[in-house]
């Protein structure tokens, strides 16, 4: 015990040491560079871009200077957006999430915007620090160039570099901005929400909300409230659904592709087109049609009553007697939605089965049937396994079909999450319908953990595939 503890401690300590040393090295390098640099570059440490300007890299220097000026004025003046300060004040606000409770004539601090702006400000500080070092590096590089007797790069040269050795930067920057603003920032924001009590009783701008630590997560595991009671059942159904949906589509799609690609079948293109139309149609259209066709006196029920299959209409989608009616219905409708997609994909693969495999089999005297069983099927399965796994993950977050068909019904008394709700529709209901943002965020994080685990497993698996290099 003690020994292990010590070993742990040692491991921890050495990691700590390493980390510390790294930081120390950074500082030393920084100090060394400062000492070595020209006066202009030295001043650049305080007035960004000064060194560049001195080295006749005027435009670059001005840009650096403007960035510094902009950043400092932002931090000092903390301008207000939607009556919420942005800048250094928002760092304090990020911790307090607002203090002014407001009354009938005065507004309440908007905790949500304070949280958002606080995160953005931290992001901007990080960006500024990086730009700061970039400016010093750039000026120092010019120092070195001069020392070596070269001319510092001109702005034009810098731009040209973007088309060649720094091409990846030019290519990635626009996408990076998009990711930063519309994915990374929102994700960090929503993760933070999971640690607050931002819910329907604390509407932003009217009631302050605050940090609550891990309370929302603890509730999941000690079975408290909506999320504690419903998480496991919803998770169970989500995973079951993902299995059923994935495999029914996969098998159905392959069978359909084989049927269409049979030698004797003529008009392959026409057949394929018939099925493909369903992919091209928006799901809110086709699923609405489905919902109406499945109504009590809709064509499907009427047909089944008429041929004597059932006595009275089945309530397919909101059958309170058993959730399995709705669940099975959804899986069946999903076959209608998804099979054409798999069919399309497998058709492509079937046409591309390497010829030499068949030829080799023929030489070995295999019958067509054997060739099919031992070559075609394994090949298709081999090639599509990654797809199988990604579509499994896709089905975990398959929103449309549940949302448009049942909306989660039948309901479970006392809870928001119904019997057919998946994690993703539950998340939607919690945030958009019920404004229980913190619970929604918790569900989102848990969904992420599940899909991430599945992906991780996939990755190790598909790596082993890649190493095998090719299908043998």
């Amino acid at each position, binding site marked *: 015990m003690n020994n292990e503890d010590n070993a742990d401690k040692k491991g921890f300590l050495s990691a700590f040491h390493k980390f510390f040393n790294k930081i120390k090295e950074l500082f030393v390098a920084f100090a060394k560079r400062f000492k070595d640099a020209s006066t202009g570059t030295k001043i650049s440490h305080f007035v960004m871009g000064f060194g560049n300007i001195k080295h006749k890299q005027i435009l670059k220097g001005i840009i650096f200077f403007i960035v510094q000026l902009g950043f400092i004025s932002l931090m000092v003046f903390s301008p207000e957006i939607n009556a919420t300060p942005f800048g250094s004040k928002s760092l304090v606000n990020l911790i307090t999430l607002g203090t002014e409770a407001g009354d009938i004539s005065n507004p309440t601090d908007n905790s949500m915007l304070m949280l958002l702006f606080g995160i953005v400000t931290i992001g901007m500080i990080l960006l500024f620090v990086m730009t700061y070092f970039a400016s010093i590096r750039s000026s120092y590089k010019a120092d070195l160039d001069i020392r070596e007797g070269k001319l510092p790069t001109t702005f034009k040269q810098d731009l040209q570099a973007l088309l060649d*050795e720094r091409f990846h930067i030019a290519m*990635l920057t626009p996408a990076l901005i998009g990711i930063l603003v519309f994915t990374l920032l929102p994700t960090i924001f929503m993760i933070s929400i999971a640690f607050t009590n931002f819910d329907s009783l604390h509407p932003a701008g009217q009631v302050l909300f605050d940090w609550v630590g891990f309370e929302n997560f603890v509730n999941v595991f000690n079975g408290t409230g909506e999320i504690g009671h419903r998480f496991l059942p919803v998770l169970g159904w989500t995973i079951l659904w993902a299995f059923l949906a994935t495999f029914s589509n996969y098998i159905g799609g392959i069978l359909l592709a084989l*049927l269409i690609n049979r030698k004797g*079948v003529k008009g392959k293109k026409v057949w394929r087109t018939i099925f493909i139309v369903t992919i091209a149609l928006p799901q*809110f259209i086709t699923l*609405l*049609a489905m919902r109406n066709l499945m109504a009590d006196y809709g064509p499907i029920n009427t047909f089944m009553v008429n041929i004597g299959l059932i006595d009275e209409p089945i309530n397919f989608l909101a059958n309170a007697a058993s959730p399995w009616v709705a669940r099975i219905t959804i899986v069946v409708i999903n076959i209608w939605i998804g099979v054409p997609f798999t069919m*399309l994909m497998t058709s492509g693969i079937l046409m591309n089965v390497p010829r030499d495999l068949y030829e080799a089999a023929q030489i070995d005297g295999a019958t067509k049937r054997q060739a*099919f069983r031992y070559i075609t099927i394994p090949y298709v399965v081999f090639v599509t396994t990654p797809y199988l796994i990604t579509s499994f993950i896709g089905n975990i977050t398959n929103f449309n079909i549940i949302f448009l068909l049942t909306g989660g019904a039948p309901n479970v008394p006392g809870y928001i999450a119904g019997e057919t709700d998946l994690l993703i529709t539950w998340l939607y209901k919690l945030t958009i319908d019920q404004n229980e943002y913190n619970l929604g965020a918790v569900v989102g994080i848990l969904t992420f953990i599940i899909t991430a685990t599945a992906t991780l497993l996939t990755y190790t698996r598909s790596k082993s595939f890649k190493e095998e290099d090719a299908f043998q």
Partner: protein
Amino acid sequence: MMTEAAALKPKAFKSVKKSERISNILSYGLLGVLALIWMFPIVWIILNAFRTEYNTSGQLIGIVVSHYFPTQLGLENFKLLFQETLFPRWFLNTLMVAFFTFILSTFLTLCVAYVMSKLKFKMRKRYLSVAIILGLFPGFMSMIAIYYILKALQLTQTLFALILVYSSGAGLGFYVAKGFFDIIPDSLVESGRLDGATNFQIFTKIIVPISKPIIIYTALTSFIGPWMDFIFARVILGETNVELHTVAVGLYYMMYGERIDSNVFTIFCAGCVIVAIPIVALFLMMQKYYVEGVTAGAVKG
């Protein structure tokens, strides 16, 4: 069963003909039944779009009815769609959003995919793993946050915001295209470099010309997206300005909502048909590329 039938090919000449004929008939029969099942709801929508039945007081019956085949066909629903709703406006909005999304999105996707596949640089591995991780967070989770970010930028209730949001997904959704570029041999890039071409020239002169399938696939999927999405568009555009709605949002509100007038079902169907025509046409024209794209993406994972 049918898979076996597909492979069945006995040796004797006479029986070949007979059993093949039988299995062919079976295949056609099965395909026919399946096609019927698959077309049933779609034909129903189309028929309803053209249904112009009037009730005893001379009112157009716009609700769902129980008979599958209309007793009277006409173009009244389309007329109403264009006169009584803002559909033409929605259509133009969507066309605009789809057009710019497809330009921006295709451009971004190709850039990122190519860089990730063919250029080696310091942050590459890290970017890839961050992209995977970020992509796994459910999009709806950040929807609220995106709304407020757009609002802080004073962009909510604009179509521009919609274009931005749709296109910004490209930075993460580059896997299919990367799969395609991975297949292109590195030697092609190398030879370009030996000829003294810059990376930019290699990309524009060598890679782009041979990437037609993946460009078309990316363009197609990003163009179709805005026609189908009714969730993000609803949140970003809000209910406040009906004139800004896309067709998906506009049609969605016609039939899904708390207090809807269900007498507009046939008009809704007419709208659906008009929306479906360009998408289906595009889809069928580009089918070949779509298959290639999907297959490339699926196989590479």
